[in-house]
């Protein structure tokens, strides 16, 4: 990227930590054998993968054996949701999720709807937070599975996973959490959290792209049907030659994150304060989400501003409108619509997302660019038609 670019789109993807890049290269150069092979070279790669599982298990405080490697959170979400729904179809065909989930969750549920599953999407409040009472009210006797995300990718809103999970345990409902935006960023202790399946992806916390994991609790009633077949790798749950170097990189990123979560959070809180303090007095501005969400994300709408022009005027700052995964479509964000925003409000939304490398100067620059852009565009607009 050119030097003037200011990257404030860490929720879409993070740069890879240089230590992770070093580890990937080291492993790629020295341990390229297939980890399924029994010869010495294969055993070596096998050991590296076991070590990475230990690192990731350490971050989440779980037995490394409960982790299945995937290509990312999209695959993990699909494996968890359609894999469990199909495996447990005999227990009931009702599933529960939330309107503001990522497409990698809602699109799977929509597909299952076409296969005679019954899906209830609960709505969060206007601040994006799901009320556990609303969640509980959606559960039925034939509910077999629920999926609620940890940190929302557009707004940073944090759901009360502990309470929601406890409700599920009581009702014998399997509980999946899409933690793509939470792992490595918030402290997560899976030995205590009542969560049965959890999705994560490397590229959201300074690890490699193209690798993720699914945690599956070690309990006989929790099992998933595979998404694909072949070879015997990973207990047949997810076959295919394991990418040793990427897995080692993901392990490294997990280990680095383990030691930095509190410091990262403090850093992000400071940056978010600078950002929000710098723009909150602008006429017509509105925070999307709750004030105590994940501090790496600040999403704001603004009255009387057209989003696409705002985005272009903010260059060379790289930010998102709506979800990055969805940003090619011109549709207003369905997540913000679910929070009660109008099309116009949703369309003007900018998601600033900050990360470990973000500096105060970058955020201050973003503040001044945002103020300037709003002023310029408003100055250009005609009055309302009579």
């Amino acid at each position, binding site marked *: 990227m050119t030097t003037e670019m200011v990257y404030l789109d860490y929720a879409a993807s993070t740069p890879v930590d240089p230590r992770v890049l070093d580890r990937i290269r080291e492993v790629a150069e020295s341990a390229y054998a297939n980890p399924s092979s029994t010869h010495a070279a294969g055993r070596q790669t096998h050991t590296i993968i076991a070590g990475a599982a230990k690192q990731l298990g350490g971050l989440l405080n779980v037995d490394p054996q409960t982790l299945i490697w995937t290509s990312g959170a999209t695959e993990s979400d699909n494996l968890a949701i359609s894999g469990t729904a199909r495996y447990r179809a005999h227990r009931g065909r009702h599933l529960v999720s939330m309107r503001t989930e990522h497409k990698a969750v809602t699109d799977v549920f929509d597909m299952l709807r076409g296969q005679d599953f019954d899906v209830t999407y609960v709505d969060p409040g206007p601040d994006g937070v799901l009320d556990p009472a609303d969640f509980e009210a959606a559960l039925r006797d034939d509910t077999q599975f629920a999926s609620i995300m940890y940190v929302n990718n557009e707004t940073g809103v944090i759901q009360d996973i502990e309470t929601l999970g406890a409700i599920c345990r009581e009702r014998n409902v399997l509980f999946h959490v899409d933690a793509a935006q939470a792992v490595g960023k918030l402290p997560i202790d899976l030995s205590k959290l009542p969560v049965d399946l959890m999705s994560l992806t490397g590229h959201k916390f300074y690890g490699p792209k193209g690798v993720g994991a699914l945690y599956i609790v070690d309990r006989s009633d929790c099992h998933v049907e595979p998404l694909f077949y072949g070879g015997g790798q990973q207990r047949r749950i997810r076959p295919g030659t394991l990418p040793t170097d990427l897995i080692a990189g993901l392990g490294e990123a997990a280990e680095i994150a383990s030691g930095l979560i509190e410091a990262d959070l403090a850093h992000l809180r400071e940056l978010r304060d600078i950002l929000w303090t710098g723009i909150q007095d602008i006429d017509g501005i509105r925070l999307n989400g709750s004030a105590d969400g994940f501090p790496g994300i600040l999403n704001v709408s603004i009255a009387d501003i*057209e989003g696409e*022009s705002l985005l*272009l005027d903010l260059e060379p700052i790289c930010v998102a409108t709506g979800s990055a995964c969805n940003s090619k479509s011109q549709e207003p964000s369905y997540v913000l619509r679910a929070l009660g925003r109008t099309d116009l409000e949703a369309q003007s939304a900018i998601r600033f997302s900050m990360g470990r490398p973000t500096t105060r100067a970058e955020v201050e620059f973003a503040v001044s660019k945002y103020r300037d852009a709003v002023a310029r565009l408003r100055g*250009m*607009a*005609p009055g309302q*038609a009579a």
Partner: protein
Amino acid sequence: MSGDPYSPAVRALFAEPGHVGDVDGGEWAMLDEQGVRVRLSAVAKAGTIEAMRFRAWGCPHLIAAAEWLCGYYEGRPLAALEEFPRAPIMENLAIPTEKTGRILVLEDTVRSLGQKFGEGS
């Protein structure tokens, strides 16, 4: 396949539009349709457009097209308002086809402005 949704022309016109504003003592027209809002105003002398200004609320393509249009019409006869230079705009600015609707709003605004001059004369 650079992936850049904006042509260099759109970027330049959007970044530094020289024709934002209103003219004094001429005619104006405004439309609010298809999620965009455009106001054009112009003064003419002896049947020639002397100055044209725009105000716009909309996407960069619309703003760039409005800016381009003002420069295009300045110095042309009023009669030119009846012929909207759609093809040159679409081509010179590389407007993607899905934005055609917004350019049509601009066209309607120009036509409306032309009618104002017609009525006034």
